[in-house]
């Protein structure tokens, strides 16, 4: 026997750490790490409720597996975007990414740089 609120409180605290990381970090890769923390907090919730409800079809555990798959897809796409931003902006500091539009001509890119 274990109190249900132990894993739930652990998940809540991990989620809050993820919220803090997303808001406070400047490096885009670290923001992605904080998002991973938040996703894992949700997974812990799902597994805890699966164990509590004694689900014969294991909805919680299967949904956790699906969330892990979606997290893998998200991290792959996110890192591809981060690398693209690094190539075009020479840096992945998200505080400085004020110009993310896809422009064709050089003048517009230069103007945007001058405005910033």
């Amino acid at each position, binding site marked *: 026997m274990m109190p249900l*609120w132990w894993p739930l409180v652990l998940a809540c605290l991990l989620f809050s750490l993820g919220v803090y990381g997303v808001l*406070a970090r400047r490096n885009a890769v670290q923001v992605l*790490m904080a998002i991973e923390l938040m996703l894992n907090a949700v997974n*812990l919730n799902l597994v805890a409720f699966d164990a509590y409800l004694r689900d014969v079809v294991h909805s919680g555990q299967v949904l956790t597996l699906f969330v892990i*798959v979606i997290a893998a897809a998200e991290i*792959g796409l996110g890192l*591809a975007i981060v690398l693209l931003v690094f190539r075009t902006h020479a840096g992945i500091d998200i505080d400085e990414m004020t110009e993310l539009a896809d422009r064709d001509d050089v003048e517009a890119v230069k103007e945007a740089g001058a405005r910033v």
Partner: protein
Amino acid sequence: MSATFWVQLLFMLFGLIALGSGLLVVTTNNLVHSALWLVVTLGALAGCYLLLAAEFVAWVQVLIYLGAVVVLLLFALMLTRAPTGKQPDLTTSNRWVAAGVGTLTAVVLVSSVVSGFRDVRIDLNDPLVGTAAVTGDLIFRRWVLPFEALSVLLLAALVGAIALSRGTHAPADDAADRLDETTG
């Protein structure tokens, strides 16, 4: 009785490890250390899954998260030429606002969860263990349609990642190249 005690003790231990290393993930001044602390957090969470009778989920966590995702993150850090030493400016200047929002989230979530589930207990004495056999059986019988939809989503994400990272024909890339040439 003693088995319950050990399960509770181990869960407490894994939880504290996950929380401490999670705090280090979002506060440390070293980019690579932050990724490595994430390994500790995710590993401790895998231990929590094991204790909550989710055996297959725990090993998938070890394989996918510790094996693949963290390696991808480390690769991204290397490819973006992240400095390996300490950096003082990894957090923004409004980190106190962020800490306030995080604390507020924690207070709201923890208070609502504790008030809602204070007296509820998980019965782990005779659990329905999610072994690989049980979970695989369920995925390919009961949950086969979302499973197949997810495999298509994963394929789409992979194709998208490849299309993004090739990037040779993207107009923005060309513009940036031309800008490089004009500015020297």
